[in-house]
């Protein structure tokens, strides 16, 4: 009985030792790859933190509204630093995936393969959200300035509404790309967008009749200069 147990333990240990001997180099390779990834990520972070401000990235972010968007999201750091950190984490993520691949395990290979095949969708979705936020910030500012110049009292509300609508549109497009709740997203967006348009139409029709009449009269009356009737010639 004792011998039987001893054989089993010996077989188990020798089997583990063999598997460890076969698997050890893969583990070591993974550790090395992850370590190299961490080092490279550090270098990327340092390099971007040095280069981006000198290339005027923070100024560009200020112009495009990206900096304001980050601040509103509670991120007070300069956009160049945020991008440097993001890029460093992306490098780490790629090297961790490569490290898992080095283990040469079937499930790891499947995971790696799926992750890499999903990566383009993820990148496109990220690009869509980034593009959307830039476009939304730009359009919001244009609408805000035009509404203030026209003397509309709810200029901020209008500009904010336009920005939110655009962001929702781009996020819905990004989620569609990721394949997350495709039907649910599409239906929700259609219902919400239709609802907003209907609400606006009703609000304008019921509450803004006089304003609409005044605006149309100002625009269509020959020689009219809008509802305010200034006769200043500015040039």
């Amino acid at each position, binding site marked *: 009985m004792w011998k039987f147990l001893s054989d089993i333990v010996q077989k188990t240990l020798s089997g583990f030792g063999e598997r460890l001997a076969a698997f050890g180099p893969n583990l070591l390779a993974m550790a090395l790859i992850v370590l190299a990834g961490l080092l490279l990520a550090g270098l990327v972070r340092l390099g971007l933190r040095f280069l981006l401000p000198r290339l005027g990235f923070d*100024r560009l972010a*200020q*112009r495009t509204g990206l900096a*304001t968007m980050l601040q509103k999201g509670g991120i007070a750091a300069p956009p160049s630093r945020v991008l440097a950190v993001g890029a460093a984490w992306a490098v780490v993520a790629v090297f961790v995936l490569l490290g898992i691949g080095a283990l040469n395990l079937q499930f790891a290979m499947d995971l790696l393969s799926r992750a890499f095949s999903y990566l383009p969708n993820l990148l496109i979705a990220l690009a869509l959200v980034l593009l959307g936020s830039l476009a939304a910030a*730009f359009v919001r*500012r*244009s609408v*805000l*300035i*035009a*509404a*203030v*110049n026209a*003397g509309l*009292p709810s*200029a*901020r509300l209008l500009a904010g509404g336009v920005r939110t609508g655009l962001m929702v549109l781009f996020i819905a497009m990004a989620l569609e790309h990721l394949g997350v709740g495709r039907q649910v997203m599409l239906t929700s967006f259609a219902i919400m967008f239709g609802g907003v348009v209907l609400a606006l139409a009703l609000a304008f029709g019921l509450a803004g009749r006089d304003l609409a009449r005044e605006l149309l009269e100002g*625009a269509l009356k*020959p*020689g*009219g*200069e809008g509802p*305010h*009737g*200034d*006769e*200043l*010639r*500015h*040039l």
Partner: protein
Amino acid sequence: MSAATLSPEVEAQLKEIGPVELLVGIPSFNNARTIGHVVRAVSTGLAKYFPGRPAAIVNSDGGSSDGTREQVVAAELASPSSILVAHALSPAQKIVTPYDGIPGKGSAFRTVFTIAERLGARACAVVDSDLRSITPEWIELLLGPVLGQGQDFVAPLYLRHKYDGTITNSIVYPLTRALYGKDVRQPIGGDFGFSGRLAAHYLGKPVWDSNVARFGVDIWMSTTAVAEGFEVCQAFLGAKLHDAKDPGADLADMMVQVVSSVFDLLGAYRDRWASVTGVEAVPLFGFPHGVGLEPVRVDAERMIRVFRQAARDLSEIWRSALAEETWRDVRQLAEAELDQFRFPDAVWVRTVYDFALAYQRRLLPADQLLRSLVPAYLGRTAGFVLETVTSDAEDVEARIRLLADRFVAQKPYLLQRWS
């Protein structure tokens, strides 16, 4: 040399006409209602004040579809009976041509400059095609100083209502005067005289694919002349009355077009204006006189409302464009009572200089930045109107001069922040 391309018909006509001494250009686009009158006034002016001198009238058209070009062709040129002279007249030659290039007044002028150079004109003028108040005397006043007094550029000086031309009065005139040191009162007047030498100089500039070709040619011509040391003078032309205003003309669009042109030139000529101190008067030709002008209705209360709203709603833009001190002052102004509302000169000058710097540094897209200047301009205009409501035109002119002097006094602020 970046001359405009001329059609074979125009080339043939130029060969037939031969050299001329005087040339008047009339840019047009759908001005059939008024251009006949303008052509007759120009032709009469040439015949009356410059008899015997070979001359040409060039209509540079932007593809009018209302019969503008036909009106020019049909316009009768001066006859002895129309101007009460006994001597023989040599009527001016008419050249009617579409211009090529980007649609805009600048491209029309480019064609005029090209023809002026090809015909060897000594003195040239350009006049708007929508003028109702042009008289033959304008031609004498625009060409005479070039021909007889050695001037290179004749800027118009119009008689205007005290609240007419408020962008000119509060931004373009004082800023141009302070930067380049020449007291040209209406640098974007639209009707100018210039020498053939200056026309060739304009033609050689690499600007004909830029905004100058579209809308900024008036201020560009004036600024180039004053900044590059040409002999500059003014001619008093009396009142300027246009055809009915384009109802589509929008204040924000005007602001973007005019102020972007001024700010672009400010960047381009930085090395020249940085060393200019003080202001010198330029010779004035003509006989200044007063005429009755129609009153102008101004809704100052609405302007102040827009300004106040902008101080609240556009705070993120203004805060980034304005220096901290200026932003603080502007916020305080927005809180003033309506009847006490004023926009002090010192704050306005800093506002304009700060926006000029923000424009150079590209803090925001140019279009958005300049559109956001509109409410500040309305605030300034409202304050000015309230301050001068009982003043006559002369007092208002003196008040504008004070503002212009303030721009000069605070020029070191611009230089300091620029560097």
